[in-house]
């Protein structure tokens, strides 16, 4: 049986002065994922290892972490695909470490909540469903795939120097509602994403897009959001483009 070495950045702020790397030798088998490896360590080598997981199928967003150079979901990253005898794992950046790979997601959720992440329709609901054409619905394709894993937030270098920056996921969520023919809170939500910590802080670095496990065009969506805000507020001639 072949094996790989996991090098995990460990840190418990309650007991450790500073983070340190620990190594674990883990036997591998076909189809094994990084998450399987972390469970092997927790069950057989060190029960104190802390990390989140739930669906193990890349859809719940629990297990985003930095694996061999980039942010990925541990559950859908097969060890063989990394093509390396060493698996280096560390927690997401820009979020306080609570223990090992387990970070405090509250700052992420605060920003998510800030943009009023729910449908705000302009009318009373119809007796049946609101109608939406297939073309209108197509505007929501991909953008609704976001699982709020936080990989984009962790990868965004703007978050390095602006803790208050809303970040890619919250801005994408805002654009999700701007794109929905049923939503009417355009002005209200534009106010929420405006300002120096809002949409203008995005420097179009594309990190978010590169790491997104759902391959969503996040940077592009933010660019559309900026453009629509310019059109809506300062340059009506740009509207409808």
């Amino acid at each position, binding site marked *: 049986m072949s094996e790989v070495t996991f090098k995990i950045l460990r840190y418990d702020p309650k007991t450790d002065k500073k983070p340190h790397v620990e190594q674990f030798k883990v036997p591998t088998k076909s189809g094994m994922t990084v998450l399987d490896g972390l469970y092997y360590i927790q069950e057989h080598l060190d029960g104190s290892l802390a990390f989140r997981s739930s*669906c193990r199928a890349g859809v*719940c967003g629990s297990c985003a972490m930095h694996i061999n150079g980039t942010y990925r979901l541990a559950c859908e990253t*097969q060890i063989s695909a990394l093509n390396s005898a060493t698996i280096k794992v560390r927690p997401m950046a820009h979020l306080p470490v609570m223990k090992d790979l387990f970070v405090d*997601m509250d700052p992420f959720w605060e920003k998510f909540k800030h943009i009023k992440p*729910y449908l705000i329709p302009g009318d009373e609901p119809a007796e049946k469903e609101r109608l939406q054409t297939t073309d209108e619905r197509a505007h929501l394709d991909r953008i609704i795939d976001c699982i709020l894993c936080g990989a984009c937030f962790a990868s965004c270098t703007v978050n390095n120097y602006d803790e208050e920056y809303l970040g890619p996921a919250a801005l994408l969520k805002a654009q999700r509602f701007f794109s929905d023919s049923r939503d009417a809170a355009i002005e209200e939500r534009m106010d929420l994403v405006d300002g120096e910590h809002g949409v203008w802080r995005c420097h179009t670095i594309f990190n978010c897009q590169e790491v997104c496990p759902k391959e969503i065009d996040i940077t592009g969506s933010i660019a559309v959001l900026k453009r629509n805000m310019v059109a809506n507020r300062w340059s009506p001639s740009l509207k409808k483009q």
Partner: protein
Amino acid sequence: MRYHQVVVVGGGLAGLRAALELNKRNVKVAVVSKVHPLRSHSVEAQGGINASLGNHPRGSHDSPELHAFDTVKGSDYLADQKAALRLTEDAPKRVREMEHWGVPFSRTPDGKIAQRPFGGAGFPRTCFASDKTGHVLLHTLFEQCVKYEQASERGEMVIYDEQIVTGLVVDEGVCHGVIVWNFQTGEIDVIKSEAVIFATGGAGRIFGKTTNALVSTGLGMAIPYWGGVPIKDFEFVQFHPTTLFGTNILMTEGARGEGGFLLNNEGERFLANYDDSSKAMEVAPRDIVARNMTREIDEGRGFEDEYLHLDLRHLGREKILERLPGIRDLAMKFVHVDPIEAPIPVQPGMHYTMGGIDTDETGASRVPGFYAAGECGCVSVHGANRLGGNSMLETIVYGAIAGDSAAQFVLDGGSGKVPDEKIFDDAKNRELARLEGMFNGGNENPADIKDELESTMNRKCWVFREENTLQEGIEKIEELRERYKNITLNSSGLRLNFDLLWALELGGNLTMAEVMIKGAARRKESRGSQFRTDYPTRDDAKWLEHTLAYYAQDGPRFEASDVDLSIWEPKERKY
């Protein structure tokens, strides 16, 4: 000690829907979830949600009565018929309400909610958002919760995530609250309440081969069971026909609803060779397809004696990308197969527990103040076999019903019993002692017990069951139950201790596995998902009854209760 009028345990579809209903009625509610609500297993549901909207030309004549009949027939007549009718009568308004709240359903050419065919119905009834219906429903319900957390015109709603309910506070047969382990801080606390609603989901992780999330363990059902609430019909387990070989990740029934084929190693659509699936073929109900797939594999017509092929290639690239992008992505990531180019390797896998916490049509259990909704509960609307598309429906219909009836219970003055404050301190101290006691065990690694439990259930309590193997399974599980008393944990403290968390979950799994396999051995007939090779037919004279399991220290004590047959006469189930 915290206080909320009602505590909802679980942040999946049923829990959030119940919380919204309570909030609408201005009842102060707290949702306690062991994971962030968006990480709940509901998010994995793919194919869709049934409602007789009649939006598809082939289903324009649909009605709640037709939907209820299909549900009852699919249940092999073990569903309670009035409860099934309530499910289907409320379905259109609950699904449309989700649309009003923002669910991006896929649409028909005239802009209505699109519907696709699913098993057990003769025409398209299943509303969907490509193959990510659970994802969009859960995100939308969470969004509504965020909205009303902040809304001043309504009562208080709080979500406590990463807090784990480990026990109930029950005094003189009345539920007064829950014991909560704050996973992030390590504190043990009590939440006092007038009513508790459990919406903790299914128990797929009793098995190894399951579509369920890692968090879907038996603990959520075991806690009320230990507290005196009976478990109903737990022997009935749905095996989903198409789960990905290797990981058992779900490949939606929608793949067959959209026209996908199941093929054996001779490239044949083998479902044509079996009487019970020759007409409906790939959209026959799940129990039938899973059995015929298992026969095919057992008789040597599978691949590597393990799996069959789900072939979507003839649907074409465009349809796969539009209707089934999620499972394409999963197949590519986990088995390196692009369904546009090649068939997907699939095998039946544990998917759903039809049984669960016994409740009536209002979501109330036999313990005043204790309610359940969603997969952890059992009304029963699914009987011996659930139709695809009815589980998410049950979460929002019966989530709302349980929320409404708990609200009414509270507004009417609750149980009327004022508990002595001492019971809360006692409950907390008992729980602290129990958890700390788990650190002083013997030398058993819980991971070994977990592996042995899973393989036992995979082999002894699977699609085909018979007395000898069930008895072997029972012996093994009783052995594991004893060994569990000697587990050792190698991580100390209560803060962020996954070692302890998984050990607690394992305790719940062992308890519920015992209820399941003993119930399966006790029921000497074949009905819906339970197929006994030694009793291959349905026996209405003896077994048209619900199984009730009550906790006792040496294993479950079984009773029976009546099935509501007030609308349709049981008939042979033919498709």
